């Protein structure tokens, strides 16, 4: 165990952590937009729209993230799309998160009691404003814990970027280990990977604390 190795490379690790954060933030944002759009579309009454959307969601949910990532990274050129490792990782996590989030949003919308819709209609609201102002706010609040779980998985999944060559935490660890074993001999795998585990663990704890705070905040406003 040599902790000096971590300290020596702290700038490198920080930059790598920055990449992980970029992947996480970008894909969470995109996934949120996608899951709102597709989750809503999956509850449309028109079967012609609903069924294809639900099939797409199901397919994206059923394949492992790594496979989706490899498909986007190695398969996209066949569709005339050249993506760098970073873009591919963000796109993969956005699509995967979007599909899983859509399923969560769909569940939330379906759980809103029917009479909410009927009451809004009898007040003379149009379909669109019923959906945006009545259904959606009630649908989204109860699904926050499930969505938070999804965000947690997305945070862990940023490590998949290492497999296609994004220098995020895991890849930076690999590089540091390779470098150290080349110049200093021995292999410090235990220290470096242990350190990365600890970083993810702390980040996870912080995020959970943040989510709990958010839930308490939102729970308070609904109790009014």
């Amino acid at each position, binding site marked *: 165990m040599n902790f000096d190795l971590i300290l020596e490379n702290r700038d490198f690790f920080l930059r790598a952590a920055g990449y992980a954060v970029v992947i996480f933030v970008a894909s969470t944002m995109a996934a949120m937009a996608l899951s709102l759009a597709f989750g809503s579309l999956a509850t449309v009454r028109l079967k012609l729209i609903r069924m294809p959307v639900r099939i797409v969601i199901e397919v994206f949910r*059923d*394949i*492992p*993230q*790594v496979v989706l990532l490899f498909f986007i990274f190695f398969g996209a050129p066949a569709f005339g799309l050249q993506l760098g490792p970073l873009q591919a990782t963000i796109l993969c996590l956005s699509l995967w998160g979007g599909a899983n989030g859509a399923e969560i949003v769909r569940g939330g919308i379906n759980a809103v009691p029917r009479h909410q819709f009927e009451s809004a209609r009898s007040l003379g609201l149009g379909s669109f404003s019923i959906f945006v102002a009545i259904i959606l706010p009630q649908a989204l609040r109860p699904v926050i814990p499930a969505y938070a779980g999804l965000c947690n998985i997305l945070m862990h999944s940023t490590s998949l970027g290492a497999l296609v060559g994004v220098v995020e*935490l895991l890849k930076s660890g690999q590089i540091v280990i390779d470098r150290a074993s080349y110049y200093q001999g021995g292999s410090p*795998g235990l220290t*470096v*990977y242990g350190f990365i*585990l600890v970083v993810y663990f702390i980040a996870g704890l912080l995020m959970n604390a943040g989510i709990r705070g958010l839930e308490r905040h939102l729970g308070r406003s609904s109790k009014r």
Partner: protein
Amino acid sequence: MTGIAIDWNYFWSVAPLFLRGLELTLVLCLVCNGISIAVAYVLATILYFRTPVLCQLIRAYVSLIRNTPMLVQLFFFYFGLPEIGVAASPLISGIIVLTVWATAYQTENIRGAIEGLPPRLTEAGRSLGLRPGGLFVFVIAPVATRTVVPAMMNTIISATKNSALLSSIGVMELTYVAMDNIAESYRSMENFLALLICYLTIVMGLSAIVTLLERHLGRGYRR
């Protein structure tokens, strides 16, 4: 570039390779999930009886595994632990990491189910003269098992999908086979199509089992 056109001759020629990969993925799924559910029941029992020390250890283990990416755990085990003399082949390492990962999630599932049971169940059992051990074996565990099934099946499906990560340390399961074929022949579409079919079959098969099990277990309540 092969383009989007699919060469069916090639597709069928790699089918035997994929079948072997599929076999290993299914074996991984069976072995890891089987062991993890069995161990998770033991751990959840220890948590239920609040055994000192062991209880804290299990809680630490569960939160450590659930709060870190499985890929990092895998690398830690496969590339890190040989440093202190714990080394295993890729397959064994993969099975151990996947099992340890799934056990943490299953333990949490069972613990959650047990804690979600109404307290009157315990009170009723006590008033019938059951001791804590008997209460757990005859009342708490069977009833909790009923409610835990959907969560448990979700974890089984996740674990099966996560077995794809094992390809990164060289376990020759489905994803490894596909990536190996692509590296050899540059035919990505055919291999990804085969991969998609295999995983969809596995996950949809498992989902069908979930639906059947839920119907079967729900029957008792409707009486």
